[in-house]
């Protein structure tokens, strides 16, 4: 476990020192969300109907922006080779990286989301479930995103390719994440949607780390 905790704390300290990177992602999240009232008009009725979806889409796009940094820096400076030669398992490396990405990107997005939802006139019943849905959904975003980032290491036009690979796989999270909030607002139970989000996170946690580890070893080969 020493490799896991060492890598996790290293990534967190790096994120803290280069906090501008994380802040850019949050700023993007805020700006992308705030664009919508200008695009669709400031009517509270229209905005509150699309608020849940807009927050989710903006969060996914913001997370996407942060993804290409997950492995690329380590890949380019040779750190990845040394990480693979950890003597334990590449899966551990992946898990530490994913957890670090979630803590530095997912959690700030979750914290920001209620603030942005206010600007979109989200009905007051929706805030709790918005945070809960993001809490259950963003780990999946990090897990799938890490896989995409590992697959495109060293590719031409890696950034565009990454969005092509990852965004379609985000669709289920987006559907149920928004549906959970919509359900609560319209007075329906959101519990089935939330348990699907949790289920998706577990399935992604079971499958993605292995595939990501394989992709990383391919990239190093």
């Amino acid at each position, binding site marked *: 476990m020493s490799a896991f905790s060492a890598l996790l704390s290293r990534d967190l300290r790096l994120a803290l020192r280069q906090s501008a990177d994380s802040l850019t992602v949050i700023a993007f999240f805020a700006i992308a969300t705030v664009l919508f009232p200008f695009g669709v008009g400031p009517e509270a009725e229209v905005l509150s109907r699309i608020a849940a979806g807009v927050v989710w889409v903006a969060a996914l796009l913001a997370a996407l922006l942060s993804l290409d940094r997950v492995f690329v820096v380590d890949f380019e400076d040779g750190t990845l080779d040394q990480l693979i030669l950890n003597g334990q398992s590449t899966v551990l490396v992946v898990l530490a990286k994913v957890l670090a990405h979630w803590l530095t990107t997912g959690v700030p997005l979750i914290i920001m989301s209620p603030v942005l939802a206010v600007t979109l006139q989200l009905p007051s019943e929706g805030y709790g479930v918005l945070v809960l849905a993001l809490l259950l959904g963003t780990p999946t975003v990090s897990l799938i995103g890490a*896989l995409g980032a590992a*697959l*495109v290491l*060293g*590719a*031409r*036009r*890696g950034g565009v*390719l990454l969005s*092509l*690979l990852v*965004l*379609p*796989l985000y*669709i289920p999270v987006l*559907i149920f994440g928004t549906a959970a909030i919509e359900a609560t607002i319209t007075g329906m139970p959101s519990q089935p949607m939330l348990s699907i989000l949790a289920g998706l996170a577990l*399935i992604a946690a079971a*499958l*993605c780390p292995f*595939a990501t580890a*394989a*992709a990383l070893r*391919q*990239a190093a*080969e």
Partner: protein
Amino acid sequence: MHKFANPTQFMRIANAIYPWIAGLCLILFAAAIPIALVFSPPDYQQGETVRIMYIHVSSAWLMMMIYGIIAANSAMFLIWRHPMANLAARASAPMGATFCALALVTGMLWGQPMWGTFWVWDARLTSTLILFFLYIGYIALSDAFEDSERGDKAAAILALVGSINVPIIHYSVEWWNTLHQPSIMKASSEGIDSSVHPSLLLPLFLMMGAFTMFYFALLVLRLRSELLAAKIRNARLSQIAGHAAAQPAE
């Protein structure tokens, strides 16, 4: 190693059966098209639009089968480093994407007159759209690297991860009560059970057979083509290596 791992031997078998597959494909099309368009009766509810079904269901069947073939070959390639398996997966992907697009488009052309809309965001349509994106991603990823082997392996990993979508597409209409009608074929203890009348089932089976044979015939041609590309690449590589070896040591 397995005898199919040897490309020369594999292609010898493939080339030998190619005329038979191609011939069968032509015969099936010759039978399927007139029966589907002229001789089969209309449906009691959907009228003549039921003829779209023959194309739509056949394309949908192929997009699923081809994805299964790609996933199986990707696994063989990653585990046993089977070069032929990789080529088969690479050769199949553009065909899978084509059939997937065809299934989506014919579905829209059928949905507009019957359901009243080109598109609904239900589970079947959404998961099929995701499959289409997976095909596109697979093709883009396998071509995105200077080192083609790296692209092959990355794409193979993507194909395996994406295979989780195939059962979702299949069961989506049963898990989810939506506009899309349930599967018309169900496997039961008494064999395959179908809610389609035989006069409509015959053109469907003929068309599915024709499409399937079309895929396999084209697969042989595309394999031949992929193998040639690999040989050309290797010939070039060994020329470069020959030049390097001719240079004096540093």
